[in-house]
């Protein structure tokens, strides 16, 4: 049961509102669905809708998105065309108009496809804690979570050079479905050899996976089907089974989707 919703008008007021154990509410597309199930206990929320955390700023190659920027805002922004495929693979338009950038970082797998893309782009988070504002690598938050009472106020990353960002998602339906396998990668190829690569897997495990084993195989190697097949064997992945796909199926099709993500075929 939802017993209170604060609607602060600044990030600092929102952070203060979290000190009593309340949870931040972005678009509510995950949290409110749980509440409607009546499965949750008493809950207090702090809505970020009016906290001034919505907006996209691009300066040179640096992109900064406010925490409460919606996925629809991303979809509309021509400067973020490289994220279009990812964003449009998430839920549906009436959900994307509510769902927020920061909210996507904290939804459980097999959702959180934007988080996979942002992790591949080595994003940093603007975090507001008791000691003030600081930056944290998204990777640290994905692994260790965010301390209670702290608030993500924004996400920043360096825009990928043209043609260096890959996103591929396999799902039960072509649109509006949780992930079976999501592959997000930033990869540069020079003279046929992989010069730089950062590879993130979503949908497979309980958390997003940074595929460092695959990255090592790919680095400096020719970007061929053979290399990608070896890369797909390089990480210990313990897939989960759910209503979208069994663990067996996820493990079985992961190499196929890694190949499609990196080679397009």
């Amino acid at each position, binding site marked *: *049961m*939802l*017993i*209170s*919703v604060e*609607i602060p008008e600044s990030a600092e007021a929102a952070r203060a509102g979290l000190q009593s154990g309340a949870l931040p*509410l972005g*678009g*509510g*597309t995950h949290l*409110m*669905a749980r*509440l*409607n*199930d009546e499965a949750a206990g008493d809950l*207090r*929320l702090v*809505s970020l*809708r*009016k906290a001034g955390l919505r907006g996209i700023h691009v300066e040179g190659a640096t992109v900064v998105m406010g925490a409460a920027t919606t996925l*629809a805002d991303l979809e509309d922004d021509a400067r973020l065309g490289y994220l279009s495929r990812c964003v*449009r693979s998430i*839920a*549906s*338009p*009436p*959900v994307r*108009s*509510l769902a927020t950038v920061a909210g996507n970082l904290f939804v459980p797998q097999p959702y959180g496809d934007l988080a996979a893309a942002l992790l591949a782009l080595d994003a940093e988070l603007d975090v507001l804690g008791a000691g003030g504002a600081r930056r944290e690598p998204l990777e640290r938050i994905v692994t260790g979570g965010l301390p209670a009472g702290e608030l993500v106020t924004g996400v920043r990353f360096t825009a990928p050079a043209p043609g260096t960002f890959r996103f591929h998602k396999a799902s039960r339906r072509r*649109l*509006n479905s949780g992930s079976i396998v999501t592959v997000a990668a930033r990869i540069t190829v020079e003279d046929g050899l992989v010069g730089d690569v950062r590879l993130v897997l979503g949908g497979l495990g309980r958390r997003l996976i940074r595929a460092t084993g695959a990255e090592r195989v790919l680095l400096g190697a020719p970007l061929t089907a053979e290399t990608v097949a070896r890369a797909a064997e390089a990480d210990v992945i313990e897939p989960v089974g759910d209503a979208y796909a069994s663990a067996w199926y996820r493990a079985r099709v992961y190499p196929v989707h890694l190949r499609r993500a990196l080679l397009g075929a």
Partner: protein
Amino acid sequence: MPSTIVTLTLNGTERELIARPSTTLLNALRETFGLMGAKRGCAQGGCGSCTVLLDGRPAVSCLIPVVTVGGSTVDTIEGLADGDRLTDVQQAFVDHFATQCGFCTPGMIMSATALLDRNPDPTRQDVTEAICGNVCRCTGYEPIITAVLSAAERRRDAPQSPATAGL
């Protein structure tokens, strides 16, 4: 936390309601304002039967605590027709038999209306994407897609009558 007064511009008219923290926009529409067009289907944001326009964008009203959207503009299916005069999208749904049981229809029409307001010349793929969050268990979607494409065509031929004229 006590109830609070929330103001909305609802179908073009400023309205107020007293809402508990747990009151969703969908509950407010149905129980306070008596607008029964938006339906409670899954209450998970998955079926789209509660879709309304929130500040011009389609949104699943079941997932929104109404206290968080005070000051917003909300448009529902009830605000579309001008008396007996249907909008082009509504008329196209009638003409192409795009409704059967009707449960999904209000949400479907709001998603379609939002699409055409932003993209007057949609492809079939655009229509499919626009309604991918609206589940229909009767029609098999084909008549709906045909209706939306037909409404777009009609609107291009008569651009003076947009679907949301009068909103």
